[in-house]
């Protein structure tokens, strides 16, 4: 049975790679600076649509962390994101007017780019509203982490999505371009996550947090997945199955210890809930380009019309990674 299943997953992986190969034509190169990529550079892969206001801080955050090159697919932005990105010296940019949903939410595009440019590089897959935090990130650059992972023969690094939100109504404090979004969305839920195992892909399935608490009280099974494996030492054989939530071969999803210990892990601070959100939700709802016919955005739209406050008395204010470690949201593992 398990041989049969392994074989099926192998076929599935091949199929994903073929799909990525087919979908490569949906992207048109805007600026290609991939010649500048050096042997052991750390690469970031992103798809986005109309995120110009977030881009300056996003790029700066990851540059400071030690990302050497950004490979970005722009899905038909009309707010100047493309022009802005094209000017950046460390960005290679593609654009696509094709359906985000039918490229499986950009995964096919990125799978292709990673296959082509990511071989034997540490690849980070993040959205413009996600900010990686890992153990010692205040004193050690990302390279220190990847070197340590290399030395430990670890090829994938887990960072769970942590929904950040402001105190007060979302629209209360407008976000200015270049500003650290964590200044506004600085609160999170610390201890209401539910985890189950996915035996097929060997990954953990994490749900919960502020989104489940506010928008999915009645249908928790539909609340979004929060498990992510965004940092991977890539090879041509790898493929993301479903956003950055899980990978094939499935051994890469074993980012957790099963015998009682803790492996090292980080957190992706998800700063979706800024004042830009309601506009975005309305637009996405119209485009219907997100998961399961945008059930997520439907739920948001319902919630936001009633103008809820995500903040509650037991929300935690973000301080630093050590706080997240103590709360048990991430771990240093045996990195000291």
């Amino acid at each position, binding site marked *: 049975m398990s041989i049969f299943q392994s074989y099926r997953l192998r076929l599935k992986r091949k199929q994903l790679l073929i799909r990525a190969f087919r979908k490569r034509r949906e992207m048109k190169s805007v600026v290609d600076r991939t010649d500048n990529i050096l042997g052991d550079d750390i690469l970031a892969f992103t798809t986005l649509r109309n995120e110009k206001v977030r881009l300056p801080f996003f790029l700066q955050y990851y540059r400071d962390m030690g990302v050497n090159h950004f490979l970005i697919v722009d899905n038909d932005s009309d707010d100047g994101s493309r022009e802005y990105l094209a000017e950046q010296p460390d960005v290679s940019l593609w654009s696509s007017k094709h359906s985000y949903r039918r490229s499986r939410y950009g995964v096919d595009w990125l799978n292709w780019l990673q296959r082509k440019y990511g071989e034997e590089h540490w690849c980070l897959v993040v959205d413009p509203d996600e900010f990686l935090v890992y153990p010692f990130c205040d*004193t050690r650059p990302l390279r220190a982490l990847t070197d340590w992972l290399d030395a430990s023969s670890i090829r994938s690094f887990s960072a769970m999505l942590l929904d950040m939100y402001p105190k007060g109504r979302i629209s209360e404090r407008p976000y200015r371009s270049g500003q650290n979004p964590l200044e506004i969305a600085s609160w999170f839920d610390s201890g209401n996550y539910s*985890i*189950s195992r996915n035996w097929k892909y060997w990954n953990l399935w994490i749900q919960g947090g502020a989104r489940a608490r506010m928008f999915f*009280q009645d249908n928790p*099974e539909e609340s979004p997945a929060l498990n992510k494996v965004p940092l991977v030492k890539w090879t041509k054989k790898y493929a993301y199955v479903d956003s950055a939530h899980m990978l094939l071969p499935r051994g890469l999803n074993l980012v957790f*210890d099963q015998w*009682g210990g803790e492996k090292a892990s980080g957190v992706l601070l998800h700063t979706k809930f800024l004042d830009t959100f309601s506009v975005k939700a309305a637009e996405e709802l119209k485009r219907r380009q997100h998961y399961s016919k945008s059930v997520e955005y439907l739920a948001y739209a319902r919630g936001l019309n009633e103008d809820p406050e995500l903040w509650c008395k*037991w929300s935690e204010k973000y301080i630093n990674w050590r706080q997240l470690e103590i709360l048990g949201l*991430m771990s240093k593992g045996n990195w*000291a």
Partner: protein
Amino acid sequence: MSVGIIMLVHTALDRAEQVARHWSAAGCPVVIHVDANVPRKTYKAFTKTLGDVPTVRFCQRHKCEWGTWGLVAGTLSASELLLAEFPEVRHVYLSSGSCLPLRPVQELVDYLAARPQTDFIESATTSDVPWTVGGLSDERFTLRFPFSWKRHRYLFDKYVDLQRKIGFKRKVPNGITPHMGSQWWCLTRQTLSAILEDPERDTYDTYFRKVWIPDESYFQTLARLYSTNIESRSLTLSKFDFQGKPHIFYDDHLQLLRRSDCFVARKIWPQANRLYDGFLRDPEGAIKMTEPNPAKIDRIFAKAVERRTQGRQGLYMQSRFPHEGFEHSITSGRYSVFQGFSDLFEDFEPWLAKSTGTQVHGHLYSPERAEFSGGQMVVNGALTDSPALRDYNPTAFLTNLIWNTRGERQCFQLGPADETAPIWFIAKDSNAQVSVISGAWAVPLFKSNRNFADLRQEAARLQKLEAEQLKVLRSVWAKARIRIWTMAEFIEAPMEPLQSIIDEMGQHALRRLTEAPKMADLTGFGQFLQNLKNQGMHPYLMGDFPVSPPGLNQPKPPRKPYLVQ
């Protein structure tokens, strides 16, 4: 007299150069062994950059792979060259390219000059130490290891298995006793030259060539033959993780390393600029003569190993999700579960909160909502009372609650109607204290003003549910502290069980309960049960209640509620 340094180098050559310059600037001659795997061009460039330093030499290169003879061969070549070229050297210090001297070199020189006959080499017999990772200790010396562990793991393992099966054993030459220890040593010229010039050296070399990880045993064993004064410890601070891989030092370890007073630390991350800049400066201030004291660093790394292997008890998260049975402890703290108490006593929850100072919740698994203490909708960790979210993963709800309230004991009520409660999970949890008064669910029915037909049906349902719960609690797999009384048993002497439950919770220093919870008025309860029986529903979980004799059409004056002292 001076100290000679051997450096084994394979990567980060720029850092190695920096360190080599630092040693020789302080008057210590350096011999560098560069791994033969380093390309010739790189090697040539490296020798050239150090060409201006007269006391740096390069020895013959060998291929070094972890766990193989190459490392020893390199060390031997370097030692021969060092002893021959620099006759004033008395101690030889073996280090690697990622080692960093933490104290002024002069302090090391003085320290060794004060101990002219001492060899610093960690050396212990295999049977005495638990260091070996991977299961090979004695067998390192009695089996043969022709296959690379890193590249041909399968062959390596199979060949070991084969040798074990056929009972192959190598003979240890000349009756030497194999010793092991850290490969970073500091030996005197006397000892080292005795090893190098031993007439039997060929025998030993041939033998150790096929020993597993000879760099941890060659010198450690042979030094025992010649040294007059072995101090079995390494002067190099080097920590290993649970897989036997060295821990790496970064910029943020600067203060720790400073305070450790160790002479040399390994391994340093090549891009740790602050460490290299901080420690490779000219010494300032007075020379210290303190002993190395790595205790604090030891603690930090020991903790890291513990975190990696044991983890935080009761925590379930993205990188810790143990298989059932491998949790060590399935929740993070002790908690108490009460079944039937809040039915039997009118003010049980506030009473319990008052007498124990714990957090007392209502029915957390009530079908309507999670009844958090004080009617809260959200509690620690932003855990909500939503029944759908709770029932989506009832065990996560419980483990989250216990984790979020670490340091504060949680108590909650359970009842047969709380069908989604993870009763198996609680029963198996040694942190749980479960106290059950079976059949007490009948009291609210008895008090309620409902049609008897409905009551009978409800009683039958609850009795069935509770019977199932009790089966779980009485199973052989139950690890919780479980106490079960029938209701009849309990009300005979309620104070005693209450006292022992609360004593066990250990919240306060042992003292007698001064105030008792108020028990519901049970007049007529026996008759109520009898009525159920008469209707064909047989309530048995509450034990035997006598039917109180009916007065002759005269209701008895209401009895004082049971007040227990």
